[in-house]
Each structure stands twice: as C-alpha cells, then as structure tokens.
C-alpha cells in the first residue's frame, strides 16, 4: 500500500509537491528550532523544567484551562438548548447577542474588567459613596477565569447549537415512545449526540486559554504564557523561556489528544429529517431562563462595551489626541493584509496537493501545516526571535519576519477556507479543460482559481481580521516603533492609561464583530 501511495505522490505535479513541502517545512521551523534549542541546552533546560516553580506554573495553567473549559460548557450547553429547542421569548435576538462576546478579544475584555473592577476602578468610584470600600479582587485566578470564560464560551455555543438544530427529532421521539421521560431523553439520547460538538468547542476554548497571553497578563495571573514573557523580557533568560515554551506546547498537545480520545467510536446519522419537532414550552421557567440569558449578555457584552464607551467619552473630554490611533490602525491593516495575502498564497499549493493528490505523504504535509493551530502565539514569536537573532539577524525586527510568524500561526484558517473551496470545484471541470487541450498550469489559473475565488477571498478576510487583533506575536516581533491597535490597547491598559486604550479597543471589537455577524447570518440561512 505504501508503495502505491508513494507512486501517486510522485505523480502529483512536481512544482506543487515541492512548494507544498517547502511551506510545510517552514511551518515546522519554529517548533523544530525550539526543540533543538532546548535539547542543546541539556541539563540547564532540565533544571528549568524540573524546578518546583515551573511545576506550579504548569499546574496553574492546566487548572485555568480546565476550569475555563468546564465553565464554558456549563454556560454554553443550556444557552444553546434554550435558544434552539424552547419557546424562550426573543429567541432570535438572544441567538445573536450570545455569540457576540466572541468579538471581544480577551485582552480587550480584560482591559474592560480591570478598568471597571480594579481597586480605584470605575465601579469602585461609583460605589464608594455608598460605603463599599472594597470589591472582590479581579486580579489573579478569579479574574482570568471569569474573563476567559465570558469571552470564549461561544466557541462551545456555536457548534452545540448547530448540532442541536441538525439532530433528527425522530431519535428523541423514539426514546419518548419507548417510555423515557423528557428529562431522561435529554440525558440519554440528546446529550450523547451533542458530545462531538461539545468536545470540538471545548478543544477551542482550552487551546485559547492555554495560548492566551493578553488577558492573563493584564489580569496578572502567572500562567505559562505570562511567565515565559517575563522570563524573556525582564530576566532575559532565553533557555528558561524556551524550555517553558516547549512545556506549553506539550500541554496543548495533551489537550488535542484528549479531545481526539473523547470523540469515541459512535457515528451519528440522521434519517434526513431535521429539527421540525415543536419547541419545548418553558412555562413558568421562562423567567429564570430569561434572567439567565440577560445576565450573561449583561456581563459578557454590555459591561465591557459600556466600559469602553465610558473611557472613550472620558478621553474625548480630556482632549486626548487620537493621531497615534490612526497610525496604529494603518500599521495593523498593512501588516494584516500582507499576512493574509501570504497565508492564502501559501495555502494554495498545500490545498491542491491535499485535495487533489491524496496520499500518506500529502496528509502528513497537511498535518504539518496545521501546527500553528496548537502553537500559542508567544511560542511561535519566541522561537522566531531566537532563530532570527542567531541565524538571520537581517530578518530580526523586520516586517517580513512578523508576517512570517502570522502565517505560521494562521495558515490553518486560510487552509480551511481554500480547502473547502477546492472541494467544491468539480474535478471533472479540470479534466475537461485538460481534455480540451490546456496544460496543467493554464487549467489551474483559468478553471480552478476562478471557481475557488469566493473561498480564497473568505480565507483572506478571515486571516486579515484575525491578525488585526493578534497580540503576543506582534508584541515580540514587530519592528521597533511599529505600533498596532493590539499593542496600543495592551500598553495603555498595562500602564493604566485606560482612556487611551478605548478607541483602539473599540475598533478591534468592531472588526472582530464582522466574522461573528457572517457566522450568525450563515447559521440563519442553514436553519
């Protein structure tokens, strides 16, 4: 079998194969370099890893990821059920509002919570005359847990909702007709069918939490990312930062493996009928359900937005100059468009190889290009900082290296879009073009690419929007004085210049809201 697959790969166009291999190798570079570097450090690296403080940090980080994931699932599953399967009042409004917290980058959310809830923060100011001296602390684990849960739970909500909509009502009806109550039907029939969706969403939440740098830093919670950053910037201890980065990657891998293991062996089929069953009547439970939705939207959406609005007004009143924001916005847009173009171009050869020339070799290549998905931004950034300062000093602190890092991190997003676009291109149109006398390259440019265009532009937009709000890679790799919207929010809120952070934060939220709206619209169409 392996021989046959090898032969098929050999028949894939040489240029495509070579390009795809090169790209996959480039994607593996940061991780490979990190491994080599830590390995080379030998005992020194081992001392860092086996240090009791490292173990504590590791446990703390894992605990944060676990608790955020559990809380997100606990929040998302009932919300999904309420908005899909019940007669909850204003269902469609809640459906949109409950997804929108995802549009608030976690460090923007953290900025909002810190500026509102910190000692001498906004709410303290309001409550002080009423005799409240001290609010529960926002810094540390509690804040990080709250903020990350509030701004990532829609990652679980979206897939669970989609699955709930798609579930064949016949299963539940069969269970009811076999004598099970509505309650026991939910737990024994519906919930198991939601398991893959919950696992997929939980994976995203856990990976997001592990790789989050901005929120934990602003909330002063010493998770691995923050410790790595501190080691790198203040202690300049590169071996230690590299060893900790590798630990973080290992933790992310563990999460990916756990998700894979929970998928189980069952396959879920429907008989083609979709959620036509009448919605569950909530009766008097309607009020607590409404209060629940209202509370989530108030804390996860209304609160941060009003805080940002408050600081924006304060900034205007204080006559703050917004010139630096314009510069940052231009920089952000420039770097993001370059990264999006590079990511889409890099995605094309890989997509062609993976979709049109399936083999053992091509699926390995595909996996390699997905490393960025499990690689926290700070890890990619650090690896490239080390690599460039040792082997490619010309690249150090250049836009090119920054863009490369973005591509490593976000190529999976571009690949997802181009891949689904190519899957929809009928391969017989390509064969027909060959049959009509056109060479492979002409076929690609005249038949394949034009048909993929919607997917290619979707990939471009997705990468562009994601890069706009990226923080740790930008912080570590941007050329000196290259300030972006993300770094503006970060530096202003780390220095407690909250009013200065407001405008860039608002722009970032608006930009991130675009894909959310598209997602919600698509969901509507599908429903």
């Amino acid at each position, binding site marked *: *079998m392996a021989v*046959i697959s090898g032969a098929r790969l050999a*028949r894939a166009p040489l240029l495509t194969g070579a390009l795809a291999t090169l790209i996959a190798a480039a994607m593996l570079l940061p991780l490979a370099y990190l491994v080599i570097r830590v390995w080379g450090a030998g005992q020194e690296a081992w001392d860092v890893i086996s240090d009791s403080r490292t173990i504590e940090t590791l446990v703390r980080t894992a605990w944060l990821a676990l608790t955020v994931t559990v809380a997100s699932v606990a929040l998302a599953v009932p919300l999904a059920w309420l908005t899909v399967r019940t007669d909850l009042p204003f269902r469609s409004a809640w459906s949109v509002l409950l997804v929108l917290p995802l549009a608030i980058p976690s460090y923007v959310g953290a900025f909002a919570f810190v500026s509102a809830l910190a000692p001498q923060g906004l709410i303290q100011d309001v409550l002080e005359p009423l005799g409240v001296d001290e609010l529960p602390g926002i810094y540390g684990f509690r804040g990080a847990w709250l903020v990350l849960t509030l701004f990532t739970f829609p990652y679980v909500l979206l897939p669970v909702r989609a699955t709930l909509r798609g579930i064949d009502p016949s299963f539940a009806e069969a269970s009811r007709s076999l004598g099970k109550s509505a309650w026991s039907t939910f737990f024994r029939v519906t919930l198991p069918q939601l398991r893959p969706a919950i696992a997929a969403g939980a994976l995203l939440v856990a990976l997001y939490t592990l790789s989050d740098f901005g929120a934990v830093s602003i909330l002063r919670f010493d998770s691995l990312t923050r410790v790595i950053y501190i080691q790198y910037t203040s202690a300049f201890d590169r071996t230690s930062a590299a060893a900790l980065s590798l630990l973080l990657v290992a933790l992310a891998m563990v999460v990916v493996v756990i998700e894979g293991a929970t998928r189980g062996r069952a396959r879920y089929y429907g008989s083609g009928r979709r959620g036509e069953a009448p919605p569950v009547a909530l009766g008097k439970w309607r009020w607590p359900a409404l209060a629940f939705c209202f509370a989530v939207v108030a804390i996860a959406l209304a609160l941060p937005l009003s805080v940002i609005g408050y600081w924006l007004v304060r900034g205007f009143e204080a006559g703050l100059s917004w010139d630096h924001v314009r510069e940052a916005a231009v920089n952000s847009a420039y770097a993001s468009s370059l990264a999006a173009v590079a990511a889409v171009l890099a995605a094309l050869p890989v997509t062609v190889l993976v979709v049109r020339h399936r083999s053992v070799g091509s699926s390995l290549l595909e996996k390699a290009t997905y490393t960025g998905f499990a690689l926290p931004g700070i890890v990619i950034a650090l690896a490239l900082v080390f690599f460039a300062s040792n082997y490619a000093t010309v690249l150090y602190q250049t836009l090119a290296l920054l863009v490369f890092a973005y591509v490593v991190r976000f190529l999976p997003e571009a690949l997802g879009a181009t891949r689904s676009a190519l899957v929809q291109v*009928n391969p*017989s*149109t390509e*064969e*027909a*073009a*060959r*049959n*009509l*006398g*056109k*060479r492979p390259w002409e076929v690609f440019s005249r*038949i394949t690419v*034009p*048909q993929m265009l919607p997917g290619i532009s979707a990939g471009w937009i997705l990468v562009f929007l994601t890069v706009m709000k990226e923080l740790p890679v930008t912080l570590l790799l941007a050329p000196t004085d290259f300030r972006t919207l993300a770094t503006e929010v970060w530096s202003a809120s780390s220095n407690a210049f909250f009013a200065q952070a407001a405008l860039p934060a608002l722009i970032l939220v608006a930009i991130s809201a675009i894909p959310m709206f598209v997602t919600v619209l698509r969901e509507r169409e599908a429903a």
Partner: protein
Amino acid sequence: MNAPLLNVQGATKRFGKALAVDGADLQIERGRKLALLGPSGCGKTTLLRLIAGFEYLDDGRIELDGKVLSDRSTFVAPEKRRIGMLFQDYALFPHLNVSSNVAFGLAKGGDRKKRVDELLDLVGLNGMGNRMPHELSGGEQQRVALARTLAPEPIMMLLDEPFSNLDPHLRARVRFEVRQIIDSLGMTAIFVTHDQEEALSLAEDVAVMLSGRILQVGHPEDVYVRPHDRRVAEFLGDANFLPGTSHGSYIETLLGRVETTAPAGDVELMVRPEDLRLAPGAGQPVQIVSREYYGHDQMVTVRLGDGLELRVRTVAGPSIDGELGVEIAGRPIAYPRPTE
C-alpha cells in the same frame, strides 16, 4: 479489415490492491459507435479514463491511429491526445458562459466566434451563448458540453454515462439527438453505460465488460442472442439456466431434447424468458409461482415438478389458468456446466 483507429491491448490498472481494469482488449474502427456496457464497478469508466489520459496504465498499451498514447514507458498528456470526452456531470465551467465554454478548447486567433456559432447551431442552441450554465436545463447543459467537446475537432469521442443525469422521459429523445449529431459528423465514439437498453439501442457495436475484462464485443443482437459466457448472458437481460447433458448433436434437458451441437458432457442451457412458451398442455407441466404484469407483456415465474423455477415472458393473456406446461421455443445456448 481496416486497422482499428483505437487499439487497447491488455490494459491493466490497479488502485491499491484492487484490479480495476484487468487486461482489457478493445478495438474500434474509424467512424464506428461502440457502447461499453457493464455493471457499476466493472472498470468501464476507468478504462475510459485510461484512454483519455486521466489515469496511468499499469500494464498494456493504448494506441490511437497507429501512435502509442500509453504504455509502460510512454504517456501522452491528456491535452495532447485529441480525444474528446463528454463527462457524466457535463463538467461545464460554472464561471464561464455558454459561448466561452464552447470556445475554451479552440486555438487563439482564427474565427472563434464563427466556429462557436456553428457549433451552437449544430446542437440547436443558437442565441443561448450568453447564458450561464446554471441557467440551462439538464438537456441543454448536455448539448453545450457536446458542442464544447466537438469544438477542437477531436479524432474520436468518449462519452461517460452521458444520459444518466437526465430524467427518464427526456433520455430517449436526447439519446436520439446526440446520436444524430455524432453520426452527421462521422465521429468515432465510445459510450460508456450500465444501461443495457441504452447500449443495445444506441450503438453499432456493444462491448460487455465485467470485473475489469472485456468479455464480448459484437453487434447488439449477436451479444444478446449468443452470449459467449454465462456471465454475459446473466448481465444482458433475464436468463434461465437449465441443466442438461450433451450428446454431441443434441442435448437432453428437463424440457426435452434440444437440437444443438455442443461437446458431449454436462452442460448448462441458457434460455431467454421470451424463448420459453407457456401454454395449456405444452411440454412439461408447471405450476405458477408468481406473475409480474407490465401491460405490454408479463413475466411469469413457474415451477417444474422437481422444483426448478423458470421465468417466462408471455404476452398478457387470459389463458394461463388450468393445466399449464412450458416448452422451449427459441434456440438456446449451451455452456459447459461449472464443475462444483
């Protein structure tokens, strides 16, 4: 006999461990229309793709007009073969309008517009050049695909299940039109189909393909009436198999003696349902097991005294009650009986 235009010898193609095409031989003379008939999964589409150059041969040789297209050391790229292919799903380019689709394979320069108009005229779609493919009906899409395939003047044409995506009531008409256009150009063509009726009515020659091999090539009637092989007989239409013993010039069966020559020994006699006669008092007495009524005729399943069941096609009539018997009315074919 003329040298064949297309000559396929011992074509072999494996996918992993599976043998899709297993030493297939096929020749077609210039201007002939051949139907390549076989059940799904028999390798007929793979054979077509080997001829078009979309798959590499593992063994064997394919020649067109005396020139080798594929063998173990040669491979002519599909765009250089000049073998037109009509795809099952038409494969119209969705981002191009009808004219651009048809013009796609034409060389740059020259009077492309005139040629496109001629072709649209030929397939009866004049004036539709600006439509997009999704605005056309299935039958129209197929005609655009046909015009597009014919545009670069291919040496021969391959048609992969060309009518299977059409509604049944359209199929016969479109089939007739396509056949007329191909005839009017004197084009050599291979139609791949799994539909026996289509194969038998459409083509001058039928090649029957089963599990990767071409088992028989001949005139449609010949292949139906005198299948070389029990598997061909079973695939093409309904067939009854009666055990018998050959004595050289005649065969002894449950339904009596049949005058036909076969090597002495145990044989199996293939009798088409329409070659059996069911009538009161005829041949061997039978019992009726079931009856499928089709209007113009009916298929009656009967059981002989020893339990053997036979299928008999008769015109629908009232007279199938009472003491019925069955006898052989046509000319059956004998095969050596498979050794158990």
